[in-house]
């Protein structure tokens, strides 16, 4: 018989999680939970309602990082002065996520924990070199976001932990060029057919840094380390479509599904990257 608990404080919640061997389900904004419940019925997992845990809703600067509580909603994130100051690119890229009403409920932690392959926040945060703070009663574990997902809807979270915060190095997006494109059926309220976040730095006409993260093209949103390394030192205009195609093919596995086709996803991803990097 699964339980429903409404902890009043974070330390109370962590104590309740202490001896768990099965992962619990955390309900904050409910923007995924309630859709899944409508389609599939009540979940058969122990549920913790955490929308009112104030400790998870802070946005602070700690030494050289911006730390965003997992309970911060997308609306709060987009409006936060420190986000607009240090990461305007992230605010611009996520400005059309879902809809205003859903942004006022959906949390950053929820988008990560739900772990959809199309999760919109993940490619931009991957390019911003985000880390996650995973908290248990005994320990705070910091895991780079690029190491958090391990497979389709699978991640490294332990049964006695929850995602407490996302942290970003303040200088992650200084001195370079940001790229973001989400391809969907419409501007708002659209699940991505594919999404791309990128960061490039060119010095004396040569590519010195490239970061690329893609969504909806693999079992989980990922950086493309092989692709990122393949073109360093090159003049961007010298890159050919064939090279971009070949290195992309090695690291994305797009599928046919109800939203799009493998062929469309691959071609559009390749075209957008080619145009941005080499164009």
């Amino acid at each position, binding site marked *: 018989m699964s339980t*429903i608990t*409404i902890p009043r404080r974070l330390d109370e919640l962590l104590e309740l999680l202490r001896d768990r061997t099965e992962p619990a389900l955390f309900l904050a904004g*409910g923007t995924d939970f*309630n859709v899944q419940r*409508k389609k599939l019925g009540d979940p058969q997992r122990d549920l913790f*309602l955490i929308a*009112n845990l104030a400790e998870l809703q802070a946005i602070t600067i700690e030494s050289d990082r911006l730390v965003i509580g997992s309970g911060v909603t997308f609306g709060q994130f987009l409006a936060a002065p420190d986000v607009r100051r240090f990461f305007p690119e992230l605010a611009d890229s996520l400005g059309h996520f879902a*809809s205003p*009403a859903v942004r*006022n409920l959906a949390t950053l932690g929820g988008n990560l924990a739900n772990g959809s392959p199309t999760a919109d926040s993940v490619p931009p945060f991957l390019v911003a070199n985000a880390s996650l703070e995973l908290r248990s009663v005994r320990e705070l574990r910091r895991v780079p976001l690029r190491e958090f997902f391990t497979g389709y809807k699978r991640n490294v979270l332990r049964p006695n932990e929850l995602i407490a915060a996302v942290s970003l190095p303040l200088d992650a997006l200084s001195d370079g060029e940001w790229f973001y494109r989400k391809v969907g059926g419409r501007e708002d309220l659209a699940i991505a057919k594919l999404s791309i976040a990128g960061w490039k730095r060119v010095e004396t006409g040569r590519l010195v840094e490239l970061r690329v993260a893609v969504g909806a093209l693999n079992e989980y949103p990922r950086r493309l380390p092989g692709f990122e390394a393949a073109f360093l030192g090159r003049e961007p205009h010298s890159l050919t479509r064939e090279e971009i195609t070949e290195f992309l093919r090695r690291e994305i596995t797009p599928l046919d599904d109800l939203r799009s086709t493998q062929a469309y996803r691959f071609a559009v991803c390749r075209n957008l990257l080619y145009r941005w990097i080499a164009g």
Partner: protein
Amino acid sequence: MIDLSFTLNGRWVTLSTDPLRRLLDILREDFGLTAAKEGCGEGECGACTVLLDGHPVTACLVNAGNLQGRRVETVEGLVGTLLGQRIVAAFEDTAAVQCGFCFPGILVSAYHYLQHHPEPTEAGVRAALSGNLCRCTGYEKIIEAVLLAGTREAE
């Protein structure tokens, strides 16, 4: 079952209910506030939009267990305000309502936008209403009505 207290259109209410019960159902069934509609039940149409702590949310995605101590305002409360009245009048004057199903959600989103933007712009109105779907009108008169309500308030 949990015991729940929150403010609803300015007054404290209490009830005992299932913690996963949706705010939309609580409003319609327990309080007879039927302006908020279930268009999709998945947060994608906006017909159930209400204000939660002053921010537009889709009530079909809010669970009772997360409502303790929070502030809920529905269309029925907002139409009693000056801004709410201006919005209703503007929609009447532009004939921007057809079947009316989307209108309560649109009113809440428009109310919130105009409350925070005394000088409304078309782009701002479009963004504010981007989560409210209308199958009848094609949106042009709705946008005109919201801009008109904003303009009249400035007078």
